[in-house]
């Protein structure tokens, strides 16, 4: 006997889903917009920005969950834009805007969520720690040349132990994927103390190991 297809309700609409699909995945498949800042189709879900939170009712429990990392469950009832959820997203984008007032993608998201004023003192960071570069380097390039150093508010993207990394192959994947796009490859390398690329026309020569790389 064929099993009954599993279904989930999102914003009042009922959808069937495949095993392993996340709430975000199903919503996007059906054109329901949930804002995200650390999600990327090519990478494993990570769940760090928390912008994608939704209200999930499952059994008799109602909880706030990050939709990008929460697998859909049979009978779940999801609401993507309750007043509480909107309040959380606004607070989150205020926090990120205070951290990175000059990153375009953050500014755009703030506009989208209707946030104009930030009740916190502003700093000027060029990275909002979405971790896409770190994950891309590990998952797509497969070299793990960069990771997070320090913790908490001091976290930064850096090569392991903050040392000059020989693992980096200068492929540029991290800069291409970076949604902040506030620096180019050269700056990334300089800042992270890794291979520094010289040269024109997208071909670079690392001043440390002297090999040539594409990208830049």
């Amino acid at each position, binding site marked *: 006997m064929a099993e009954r297809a599993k279904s989930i309700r999102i914003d009042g609409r009922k959808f069937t889903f495949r095993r392993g699909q996340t709430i975000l995945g199903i919503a996007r498949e059906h054109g329901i917009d949930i804002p995200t800042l650390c999600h990327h189709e090519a990478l494993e879900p990570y769940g760090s*920005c*928390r912008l994608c939170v939704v209200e999930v009712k499952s059994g008799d429990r109602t909880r706030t969950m*990050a939709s990008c990392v929460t697998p859909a469950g049979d009978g779940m009832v999801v609401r993507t834009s309750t007043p509480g959820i909107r309040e*959380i997203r606004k*607070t*989150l984008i205020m926090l*990120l805007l205070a951290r990175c007032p000059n990153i375009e993608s953050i500014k755009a998201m703030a506009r989208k969520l209707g946030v104009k004023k930030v009740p916190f003192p502003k700093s000027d960071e060029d990275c909002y720690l979405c971790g896409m570069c770190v994950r891309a380097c590990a998952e797509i390039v497969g070299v793990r040349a960069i990771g997070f150093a320090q*913790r908490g508010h001091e*976290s930064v993207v850096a090569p392991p132990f903050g040392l000059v990394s020989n693992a980096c192959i200068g492929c540029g994947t991290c800069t291409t994927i970076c949604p902040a796009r506030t620096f180019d490859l050269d700056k990334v390398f300089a800042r992270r103390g890794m291979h520094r690329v010289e040269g024109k026309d997208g071909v670079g020569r690392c001043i440390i190991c002297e090999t040539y790389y594409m990208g830049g």
Partner: protein
Amino acid sequence: MSKKAVTKTRSLSVCHGSCCVLAGARDVAAALKAALKENLPGARVKVKKGRCSARCGGGPVVTVEPDGTVYTGVTPGDAAEIVKKHVAGGKVVRRLAAKAKVEPGPIPALGESGFFKDQVLIAMRNRGRIDPDSIDDYIANEGYLGMAKAVTEMKPEQIVAEVKKAGLRGRGGGGFPTGLKWEICRNSPSCDDKYIICNADEGDPGAFMDRSLLESDPHSVIEGMIIGARAIGATRGYVYVREEYPLACDRVIKAIDDARAYGLLGESILKSDFSFDIDVVRGAGAFVCGEETALMASIEGKEGKPRPRPPFPAQSGLWGKPTNVNNVETWANVPPIALRGGAWYASLGTARSKGTKVFSLVGKVKNTGLIEVPMGTTMRQIIFDIGGGVLKDRELKAVQTGGPSGGCIPADMMDIPVDYEELARAGSIMGSGGLIVMDDETCMVDVARYFVEFLEDESCGKCTPCREGITRMREILDRIVEGKGKRGDIELLERLAFTIKEASLCGLGATAPNPVLTTLKYFRDEYEAHIYKKRCPAGVCKALIIYRVVAGKCTGCQRCVRACPVGAISGPRSQPHNLDQDKCIKCGACYEVCKFDAIAGDAIYVE
């Protein structure tokens, strides 16, 4: 003074755990810094913030490095003496020196029979009664009997059923039913391996029950793990001990070796078909590594950061295999349950919280130390009958429960029975069982600020609400205690608290706003006094008080002159002294030592 200061001392580490801070560690640190500057200008001696050294009853604690002398109960008034005698003169200040070594021996006999009367020892059943290094001692006290019964007489399902019947819940903070957790892991589609873990990361400042259990009775934890492994079908166990606990680590390793030598661990335990062994892993030291997913990542050699759940460890844990994580105290409760049955254990406690709980009773209370009481004992019984009441018979203001992310319960709620549900209803948590008693000299805004700062330092930084939000909360609290609070700050704190609680990835963020939320709930007037009246009702916040000599009371005894680390007080003997406001660092040393109440700490109005 042109002579260059010569000293062997490199640093003075002042414990900044919650108990020590409440006991005045920050003033002590400020006074030490000032005394160094005054007496040994140019000397390269650092005053550092130390982590909780588990001597919480005797705070503030100062450790002199490198010689390792530990001073307890230090006050700002002692700073000058420590600097002059020890740092400059190389002599230990005997009066303040702690006993050579802190051994978690028997519960200190405090002369108060009440301290023992209401206690029921299950997890701590052997504490102080046996030699922790002797497996024979343990066996002579019913040791390994529960495990022998579980392995030779019971089916795994029966063990799970007994633990379920006992109603045992996780003692590491979450309070999840242990039997149910075992069952889920047991029924998890099996592969070749399943793992169990003992979480001994104990990061809460002011809590030291896990350390004490491992140091004084390591076999009880190992026996519990063997029983759990049998029930779950696990082949390997790990004890994850935080690196600050070297003695606990050594004792567990020795206990494991001895158990193996006796055939209680390893292949074919008690000649059955059951094989199981345990390894010890030293923790990396970060608070968040106590969170189970971060802990497993750390054992795997990866970055110790939490990851989203699901999948839960029982589905996909260590190296992707079904894994069951329990706290030290949870494991220590298992052998008596196996031996005496679940019904016996469930006869103690309340409707939904069974058995006993170990608490570390610290702060402004007469009898401090670890206590074990049945769930449902009231807060009043714990503080007044067992604890002997508030230190110096001052007025009780609040009890902080649950560690840094717990909450403060006000004095008028002391009749609540202490169990998981009641504490949650009060807005706090059971956590690992820290109970910090606070008297009327405690500023609740300052307390909230302290815990938020601790959590800010410990946030792993992965998710936005916790990483950015806690820092913003701390900034707001900073300005409130500095007398710079603004209209709207309370509402902003509430907004941040809501988002951090709801949206954080792991339990650290999800509980981090508790200290602020509970103090706002029960002590909102104190926040308002700081913000709108620029006044600290408890007289704690330095920016909002001023010390002065009350001329009519001062006898000119010169005690304060000697105590002041910066030489701000002067005056001829037998005549009212003078306090120089420009020099005063507001450490309160003079206030502390004056025998005639002639130093007043007054509220001042800023702006």
